[in-house]
């Protein structure tokens, strides 16, 4: 851990209640950047990122939900073997505190006095109910930076609205921009883009507030609307409306500028090659690689404007040839010829991808209860630092109770034991609390 001293956020202590998908992307970024992230959890209410299906029905374990857990094992201790929790909280600490108890809450307040920041994306009402609001916390620590990011932010008529990225992106208009061209929106697959995007915004904002605090000496409250963070990225459609009052529809895989463009079938099952013929030269090179010499001289495809107008006729001609090629070999051939093209990587093969292997993108992380697995990352590659997933595994539930409560807050052994006896803290999720 000696190298940690040099990571840029070393020495920055962050309390986190970062749940589902948005919170975790903030914590993994901050942790990879060197911050000491303490996830404040509870044995009464399991952190949703650990995914709570006590008594998980076998049908769920056999299906998608089972993949969340090591070897599809939903038995006792499943909360320590959740796949993405163990990615998103790598290098973090876990403390359990029953914040609904007076003692638990007062210990949280003590932690706040030792923290630089508190980030949370609980439902908007939870923070006020538990008296974890900024007005309360800033009294205890005026240097505290608090970042709140429930889906729609903490102000405005939708502030109590619930949802995931799929819900937030719909209101922001993203869903109606990215369906298949000409298709019914009910056929549009949804995405969770909004969640990690919110997490990345939170990490940025927290660091920005550190800069501000250095000048002003004061922390501050930061309110992020996940929905607005998505809207900010729909710039092409947004500015078109602002400028021309034009309402754009589904773009599908089309480019506003080029054709041919999009994923084309390659040989094999569900294999694709994505091609962006972004110039006349690229189009000619594409035709040469695919042995379609007639296309480059065909009047329908003679220039960029004609190709765009006739892209419906062009695509099947290209696809008929790409179908005969191996996706990776065609990518290599096209790139060498100056045509922007890539295969579509399959996630179950990514650890074998030659480029990602050369970059050591996947790194083994040993977890005390889940064993050693490859993790994607690192999210920060600093020239003078070792790659970061080796910073450490994700914590088991309450793993750092003693470290933090006795080490940082100075509780005695007797006080600590009393907290355990009173179930203020613990390392086992209490089923009865949820019954």
């Amino acid at each position, binding site marked *: 851990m000696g190298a940690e001293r040099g990571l840029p956020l070393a020495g920055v202590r962050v309390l986190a209640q970062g749940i589902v998908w948005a919170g975790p992307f903030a914590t993994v970024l901050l942790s990879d950047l060197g911050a000491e992230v303490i996830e404040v959890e509870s044995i009464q209410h399991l952190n949703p990122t650990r995914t709570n299906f006590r008594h998980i029905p076998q049908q769920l374990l056999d299906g998608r939900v089972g993949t969340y857990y090591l070897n599809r094992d939903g038995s006792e201790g499943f909360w320590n073997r959740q796949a993405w929790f163990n990615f998103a909280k790598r290098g973090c600490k876990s403390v359990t505190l029953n914040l609904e108890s007076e003692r638990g809450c007062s210990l949280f307040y003590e932690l706040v006095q030792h923290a630089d920041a508190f980030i949370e994306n609980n439902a908007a009402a939870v923070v006020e109910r538990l008296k974890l609001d900024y007005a309360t916390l800033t009294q205890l620590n005026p240097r505290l930076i608090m970042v709140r990011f429930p889906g729609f932010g903490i102000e405005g008529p939708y502030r109590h609205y619930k949802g995931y990225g799929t819900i937030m992106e719909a209101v922001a208009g993203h869903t109606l921009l990215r369906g298949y061209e000409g298709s019914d929106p009910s056929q*549009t697959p949804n995405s969770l883009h909004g969640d990690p995007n919110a997490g990345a915004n939170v990490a940025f904002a927290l*660091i920005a507030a550190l800069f501000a605090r250095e000048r002003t000496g004061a922390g501050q409250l930061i309110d992020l609307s996940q929905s607005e963070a998505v809207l900010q990225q729909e710039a092409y459609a947004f500015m078109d409306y602002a400028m021309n009052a034009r309402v754009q529809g589904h773009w599908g895989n089309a480019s506003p500028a080029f054709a041919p463009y999009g994923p084309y079938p390659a040989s094999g099952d569900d294999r694709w090659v994505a091609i962006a013929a972004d110039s006349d030269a690229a189009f000619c090179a594409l035709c040469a690689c695919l042995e379609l010499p007639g296309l480059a001289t065909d009047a329908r495809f003679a220039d960029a404007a004609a190709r765009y107008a006739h892209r419906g006729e062009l695509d099947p001609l290209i696809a008929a040839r790409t179908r005969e090629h191996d996706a990776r070999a065609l990518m290599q051939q096209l790139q060498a010829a100056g045509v922007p093209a890539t295969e579509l990587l399959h996630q179950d093969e990514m650890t074998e991808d030659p480029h990602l292997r050369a970059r050591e993108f996947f790194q083994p992380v040993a977890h005390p209860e889940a064993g050693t697995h490859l993790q994607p990352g690192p999210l920060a590659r600093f020239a003078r630092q070792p790659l970061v997933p080796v910073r450490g595994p994700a914590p088991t539930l309450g793993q750092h109770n003693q470290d933090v409560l006795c080490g940082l807050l100075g509780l005695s052994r007797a006080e600590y034991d009393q907290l355990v006896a009173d179930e203020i803290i613990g390392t086992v999720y209490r089923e009865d609390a949820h019954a």
Partner: protein
Amino acid sequence: MSEGPLAGLRVLDLSQGVTGPFATKYYADFGADVVKVERPDGGDPARRMGPFPHDVPHAETSGMFLHLNTGKRSVTLDLRHATARAILLRLVADADLVVESFRPGTLGRLGVGPEAIAAANPRAALLQISNFGQSGPYRDFAADDLLLYAMGGVMQITGDPEREPIKLGLYMPLFFAGVVAAGMGLAAAWGARRDGVGERVDCSIQEALAASMDRGAPNLMAYQYSGTLMSTRERAVRMNALPAGTYPVADGYVSIATQIAWWPRLCRTIGRPDLIDDERIASRLYDPLLAEEIDALVYPWLLSHTKQEAMALAQAEGWPVSALNTMDDVFRDPHFRARNFFTTLDHPYAGALEYPGFALKLHGTPGTLHRAPLLGEHTVEVLCGVGYARADVVRLRQLGVV
């Protein structure tokens, strides 16, 4: 006007396109002094991306450029000239953070690579943004948002299983990587300030997408843990229960997400509290065999409400339903309006327009949105700021350096 959190931070921005400029937009909007270096002949390619007012292309009115470059100062430098490179290194000497997004190796070939930058200013942090990173066999591959999304692994699982995979909205993967890069670069600047020594960050857009929580890292981890992918190409990203996905309502569509535990909320919303205790459905909301039956329950209710009504009524019960807004719905949306998201900026060529404003609201140091710069608008003031006389700038212009 309000001082942003990054007031006093000096950023030299050599990036162009979407990802780099979106990262440095964060710095500029939040108060940093961002000096954007552009080529004299046409500048940043985003100046050609559009959309344009009345569909008339103009170098100063590209909507993408105007949004991506708010609050920056523009300097033109033709880095093919040795004099321009010397000027660049003088600008580096005054910067806390340098950002670049050239193809890997380009700056080095011009003689202003990472070593030259570190020599000119050992205290400056350097953020290098690229498609596939600064190393590896695909380092020099050309790519755009479609190709990077494809190489991030998530595109293959996005879309209808019976059709070709589909990408996100235009440029979204690049915008996302821009936010990730903004945090990395700012962290590097923070560390450099603390240590008194600059640090270099290698940000690969492909890797940011592959490790994203949007079915990237979770799926890769699920595969490591269980031997099976959690998500495949499917109509809807389901949580664990039905109904889920996009559904029609009286005047359009809504997006729905459901958890098993939320069955009572759904029943109350659609006026069927009698079904709350119907164990046959309640305990098997994840079962695809029930899909038609559940759809038959919710369709009549959905079709008798508008998207705004359906959202308000369901959300009042705590059931996540939301309107699929078009862009004109978005511009009228009461929530975005109440939060003052839209910000009007005037521009000498594009006129007064509404722009996307702040998604991040920093209550203590909010920052301010200023319009994007004209090409080379600040060349004279920036060069004079590092010791050139006005007469020098006139000569440099004659030489084609600026």
